């Protein structure tokens, strides 16, 4: 077990190192000169050279990379080219909105998708199954931004026209100052981000559940005299936890990608919008910081899934 964990951690470190080198190199070969961008069109060549020297951009790439690596190890991601603020602080400021969005959305889609999937699978072909499948079809067919626009229209714009505010149209309020206000502001972003995934989870749950309910051990459970509830929730659901965990691990890692669109639609000041702005500004330290954070996130999510696997499936222990 410890050996397993150690090998996973070593692998994770290697992945992150490779990622950092890759991103660093990518920006080095990319066109555009950050020093020129910073100093502006009217700056003299000498001024640009001065800025370039200040940023350390005149040194050979391997030297730059090693310096960067050394600083990163100490938790220092450098300063934004734009406003000279530490990247770590910029990221830290943007974290609460993204984390709120991500965790809430994940809980929401798991909480909607899995029950709908189970409902569908318990009585295949029934009205409830067809309702569930209808939900799956709609959720999967619409892209996030369409769902976002639709929820914004029906839950924010339309009520406003009728003279009341059902949900606010955007903005992030701190969880610590007032959790109620925080949740109220997050409902629309959560729904937008979660609906498509909820449909995917409903479909996955339905399919896996249908397969498991045909297993011999389900017949054994019934032959024992267990109630149908216990057969479904104790024996059936337990059997599909492994595939669900696999999917969840991959999706948690990808939630940052979905968050970019949602943050734009609802004007949330999160990591997604930070990354979008940084790309526009060629603000390399921020981009590298966000990419590394996303990489760290994916790597950690994968390790957690691997560990959960060991806990869930006695056969791989």
């Amino acid at each position, binding site marked *: 077990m410890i*050996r397993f964990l*150690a*090998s996973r951690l070593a692998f994770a470190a290697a992945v992150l190192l490779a990622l950092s080198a890759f991103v660093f190199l990518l920006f080095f070969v990319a066109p555009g000169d950050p020093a020129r961008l910073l100093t502006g069109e009217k700056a003299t060549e000498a001024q640009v050279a001065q800025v370039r020297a200040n940023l350390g951009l005149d040194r050979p790439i391997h030297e730059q990379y090693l310096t960067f690596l050394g600083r990163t190890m100490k938790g220092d991601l450098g300063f934004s080219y734009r406003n000279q603020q530490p990247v770590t602080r910029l990221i830290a400021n943007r974290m609460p909105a993204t984390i709120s969005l991500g965790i809430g959305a994940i809980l929401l889609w798991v909480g909607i998708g899995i029950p709908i999937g189970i409902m569908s699978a318990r009585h295949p072909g029934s009205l409830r199954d067809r309702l569930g499948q209808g939900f799956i079809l709609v959720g999967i067919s619409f892209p996030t931004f369409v769902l976002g626009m639709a929820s914004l229209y029906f839950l924010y714009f339309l009520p406003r026209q009728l003279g009341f505010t059902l949900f606010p149209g955007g903005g992030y309020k701190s969880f610590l100052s007032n959790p109620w206000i925080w949740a109220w502001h997050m409902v629309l972003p959560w729904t937008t981000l979660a609906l498509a995934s909820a449909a995917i989870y409903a479909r996955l749950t339905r399919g896996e559940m249908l397969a498991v309910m045909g*297993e*011999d*051990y389900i*017949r*054994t*459970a*019934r*032959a*024992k*005299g*267990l*109630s*149908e509830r216990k057969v479904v929730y104790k*024996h059936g659901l*337990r*059997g599909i*936890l492994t595939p669900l965990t696999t999917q969840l691990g991959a999706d948690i890692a990808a939630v940052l990608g979905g968050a970019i669109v949602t943050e734009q639609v609802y004007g949330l000041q999160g990591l997604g919008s930070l990354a979008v702005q940084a790309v526009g500004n060629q603000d390399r330290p921020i981009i590298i910081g966000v990419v590394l954070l996303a990489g760290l996130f994916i790597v950690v999510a994968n390790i957690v899934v691997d560990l959960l696997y060991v806990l*869930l*499936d*006695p*056969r791989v222990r």
Partner: protein
Amino acid sequence: MAILEARNLNIALPTGDGMVHAARDVSFSVQPGEMFGIAGESGSGKSVLAQAILGLLPTAEVEGEIWFEGKNLLALGSRELQQLRGARIAMISQDPLSCLHPFYTIGSQITEAIHTHRRVGRAVARREAIDVLKRVGITSAAERFDHFPHQFSGGMRQRVMIAMAVVLNPALLIADEPTTALDVTVQAQIIKLLDDMRRELGTAVMMITHDLGLLSSVADHVMVMYAGNRMELGPAQAVLADPAHPYTVGLLASSPSNHEPGSELTPIIGQPPSLLARPDSCTFAPRCARVMPACRSRRPAERVFADGSRSLCWLEAKASALPVTRPAQQVAGRRDAVEHEDAVVRVRDIHLAFSSGGLLRPRQRTEVLKGISLELRRGRTLGIVGESGCGKSTLARVIAGLIPASSGTVEVQGKDISRLNPAEWHELRKTVQVVFQDPFGSLNPRRRVGSIIGDPFRIHRVAHGVARRQRVQALMEKVGLNPEHYNRFPSEFSGGQRQRIGIARALALNPSLIIYDEPVSALDVSIQAQVLNLIRSLQAELGLTYLFISHDLSVVRHVSDEIAVMNAGRIVELGDAEQVYSAPVHPYTQTLLAAARPLPSGASPRVGSEEMREGAT
């Protein structure tokens, strides 16, 4: 007073093709504490019957009555049925691996049954579960309580299933093919355990099986089913030793263990009928050796005989009075003729090891084959028997050149197959052909049968166009398939026919060696006999050399000239088939034979010969 009484049961299951009539007017009763056997081939409706008793067929239309402890099970609500299931009627089924939940410990699965039906504390339930585990022969039961199903062998898992079934002391235990997925030596132990349990606890056991021989030693009554009909019912002795129905006679005659080795088996002709129709005639009539005009026009009435057996047949006397022909000594002659022939394959000291592990894990070597040497002589059959995991299929793959050996040599027609150049390798593929076990999985469902059989011609560029078609159709005819079915898909063929397709494909390039890897183990007895006869007649006709692998001793003995007994990667005994069978030297061979002993004396049908059975015991 019977503990279970089924009256005029009719079961119909809705499927995509229409209603399947899985049971038709079936009545029977089970006495307290008895072993009641239900025998039949796949599709006979025997498992459906078992599930109908427990109410586990929610979509089925079930008519009739099933009386159990004063209640009609078919009239009970789901809650009342739940209270009976597990507590009064328990069930164990075929595959103990898939029947236990893989993610819960075996102990918790047993205590779950206790907690469902009785209000007891955790400690009490645990103690009772450990007690019952001990009773079914699980050693250090207290420790193994917390183990998961995958940590047990197949036989041990079936013991756990039995423990789970008997822990609440039910009045009736339904065992649906409890030993089919197990090795021979384990099968015997499980049957004995079930027999002991019912004697100890007074539980009636309803044993469902496709293997009539299995019932002979333990069952009190036997019911034979065919296409949803109860063909015959009576005391086990009467049914097995003096069968009344031609179908029962046919079943017994198809089994190689009731025949002189090497002789022609007496298969039941044709295929089982579709259950979609409910014909107003005898369902067995199209396959029956004793069919009469009345059989085709009216459904037979039940006839009761003096010994208590009942038969659904128009015959007035028992069908077993029919003499079954046994061609006698042709075998010996054939064997003598091929003495001193050259070896097609020479295997010398083959070792095969797989290694596992990776970068950070210590490498582990698992030896699968530990020094195998043998010779296959032209025109003869070498049978390899052994239990699952002994390496017999792996050996076949090594000889076919599909897996390279770690050390040792395989010579095919004098050439070491590890030193072949690509051209010679191509040539070897013509010489050695393999027929695989699973007739469903080994044929591509999306390709037409004609092109599957024609593949060898295409790959080796032997024949094209019309010529290829003609040769394929000739092959189809040779293996007993209708050549007009050239354009059909594999799904349109039955299991036995698919195995014929596999054999036709193997024959295409006139190979010198055909390796059969469990060719009949997925087939029903009556179909198995047809395929075995085909395999033997082809050998006689074409002078083929066979390597025949099976876990079934009677099948191997039936087709083989020589037998190699494998255990844990080694050949423990190798010799003349008759000698290995009648005078086994190695203790493992003796165990294997004892476990697979055919019908015990006294319960033998007239189709077998006395000398043969004595030789086996």
